[in-house]
């Protein structure tokens, strides 16, 4: 017994010694977009760990051992909030043994608190599918939201890491200048998308549509979070024959089969959008995310 304990302690000591003694500010980003934003604002003063991949449905993530380990050393957990991570994050927080990132602590940042949420359900009941009581949490596809969140995230980083506060503020100002220019450019480029009718897989494009005046005419999911059923798809197809849509859109993480089926039967193009940073090869950063999303929709808008 004692020998076992001694061996364990020896292994632990070795493991601890093997860790880089880095004093960087550790950001644990729940989704890739907040990881990308953290890198934009934090530059080389931050270490960013991204908990989920762009090919992962952000609603269905497991509290994997790696997430608990990374959350243990995080100085800031940056997440969407609005109950998007409710299936895994509370467990990661309590199991990490990290007091800094608990709910209510400055080390826990919810992006959704910085913006006005759309589609706040009038009826909070699971008969309506996987509804989020606070509203639609897929806020990152409106660049004006990103600007608000960047300002708040930068202040939070400055608060938690005072020695680098000015560095973060400087980078944030530079980022927001570029971002405002990019928004103006995108709004010009995306002018032909105004009034375009789309069918989406999940209601995860709402903020993007609202920003550019795109009209959503249907969803492949019968209810939020419920996979498409044949009955619902044929209803949707019948509806589209009366009121056609220009395109059917899915996020990179949504399963392609139902989208392809509808595309073929309704004779409308199917488009995959990155949805978050890394969702496509072109969406390398936040700028690329919007460049690519707009380009992919423009390609079928004509």
């Amino acid at each position, binding site marked *: 017994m004692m020998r076992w304990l001694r061996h364990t302690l020896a292994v632990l000591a070795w493991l601890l010694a093997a860790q880089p003694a880095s004093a960087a500010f550790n950001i644990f980003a729940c989704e890739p977009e907040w990881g990308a934003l953290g890198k934009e604002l934090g530059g080389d003063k931050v270490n960013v760990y991204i908990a989920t991949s762009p090919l992962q449905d952000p609603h269905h993530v497991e509290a994997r*051992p790696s997430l608990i380990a990374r959350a243990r050393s995080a100085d800031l957990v940056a997440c969407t909030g609005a109950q998007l991570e409710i299936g895994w994050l509370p467990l990661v927080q*309590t199991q990490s043994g990290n007091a800094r990132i*608990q709910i209510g602590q400055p080390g826990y940042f919810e992006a959704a608190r910085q913006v006005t949420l759309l589609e706040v359900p009038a009826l909070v009941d699971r008969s309506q599918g996987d509804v989020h009581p606070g509203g639609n949490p897929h806020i990152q596809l409106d660049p004006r939201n990103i600007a608000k969140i960047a*300002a708040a995230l930068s202040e939070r980083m400055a608060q938690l890491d005072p020695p680098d506060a000015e560095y973060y503020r400087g980078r944030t100002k530079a980022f927001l200048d570029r971002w405002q220019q990019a928004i103006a450019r995108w709004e010009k480029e995306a002018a032909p998308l105004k009034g375009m009718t789309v069918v989406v897989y999940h209601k995860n494009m709402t903020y993007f549509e609202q920003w550019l005046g795109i009209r959503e005419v249907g969803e492949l999911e019968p209810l939020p979070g419920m996979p498409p059923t044949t009955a619902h798809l044929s209803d949707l197809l019948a509806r589209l024959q009366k009121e056609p849509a220009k395109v059917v859109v899915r996020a990179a993480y949504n399963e392609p089969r139902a989208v392809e089926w509808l595309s073929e039967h309704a004779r409308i193009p199917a488009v995959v959008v990155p949805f978050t940073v890394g969702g496509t090869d072109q969406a390398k950063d936040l700028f690329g995310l919007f460049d690519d999303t707009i380009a992919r929709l423009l390609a079928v808008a004509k």
Partner: protein
Amino acid sequence: MFKRNLIAAVAALAVSGPALAQDAAELAKIRAEIKQLKDTYEQRIQDLEKRLAEAEAKAGKAQATASAAEQSAAQATTAVSAAASARSGENAFNPAVSLVLQGTYARTSQDPNQYQITGYVPTGGEVGPPVRSFGLGETELAIASNIDPYFRGTAVASLAPDGGVNVEEAYFQTLALPQGFTLKGGRFFSGIGYLNAQHQHAWDFQDAPLVYKAFLGNQLTQNGVQLRWVAPTDLLIELGAELSSGNQFPGSDQNKNGIGSTALLAHIGGDAGDSYAWRSGVSYLTTSPNGRSYQDVDSLGNPTTNSFTGNAKVWVADAILKWAPHGDPTYHNFKLQGEYFRFTQDGTLVYNDTATATNVMGSLDTSQTGWYTQAVWQFYPQWRVGYRYDRLNYGTVNNGIVNNGLATAADFPVLANHSPTRNTLMFDWSPSEFSRIRLQFASDKSRLGFTDNEVFVQYIYSLGAHGAHTF
């Protein structure tokens, strides 16, 4: 409009003041000029209005660069107006409440009341199959909330189908200890092994593996404290220790001061690529049962009581590997898990047979092992199939009472040499993450000389707050 006319008039006066005393032609010219000016100003004012609108839009954007405090204040106002009714009043701090409904339809070839794992000391736990025909399972009511910035509280009550409430778990947990430590206290599921800490409704099969039934009385509940530490490494390294009263099998009610049972646990885990995640661990439990007793029959069928006093130890090695393409389990996923148990006891056994007025004592040393392995595959969204193989190895059972001829092996039928096996197959369908319906077939050779062929249909529904799922 009035404002515009006024501006136009003032402008006209200012511009054309000296021309007022001229003749009618001049007047007409002035009128034309005024009209022109008016039109121009209309145009300019429209332009101004447009610019104002644009400026307003820009101001909206510029808000982003405003201070975070201002924004959160604005957000707070929005939030308050949206949720004013929900957040006022005494119930604003209501904890998260959830309820799990469970039930089965069971068909078994053997009488569930005769269930026995021959060869292993009966645990007194609820290890038998569910009742035949329709049966209600445990209804679990869970209430959890942060208590203050320092503690979180959780209580899980299980409502038994035939009445009565059992406190499954009721514990506090620290939120603010430094250096990766978490302290839990009260009653909680022990962290030993892999499945033990999970609630039954989260298991992939209707029942526990045989090792849990034979060596932990189905599931080990601790009354005590647990200290866990997570290492500051990228690989998950988690160490834990539990001190408890040890009143549950393999311990017993000890009625003594101090610590009745100690458990040590170590887990490591991480990702392998972006599609695999794993966790592995070893756990150790030691306890000193005092007069832990079970009922049996002697060779003539008279009831006997056997009570054990001594030491009992459990070693567990567990491993789990999960696969999901790019970490997204929504469409397909696969889960492979296994646990190996080693259970040893050494101490004295008191054998009491009132019919033959025998009350003798002897040593009892046992060393037994067991394992299970299971695989669950989600082959289609919402649909899963799983297979589990269970085995217990009788190992060595040194019964001093038999060795010394004070009684015969036939007087200990429960401890007869037997190494049970079980094959289990299940299919389940989960229309959403809050509902699951399962069909399970098992061929269970736990009882010496009998094979119990079981068919269960089980439902699990969870209502209320969205609980997070453990890995």
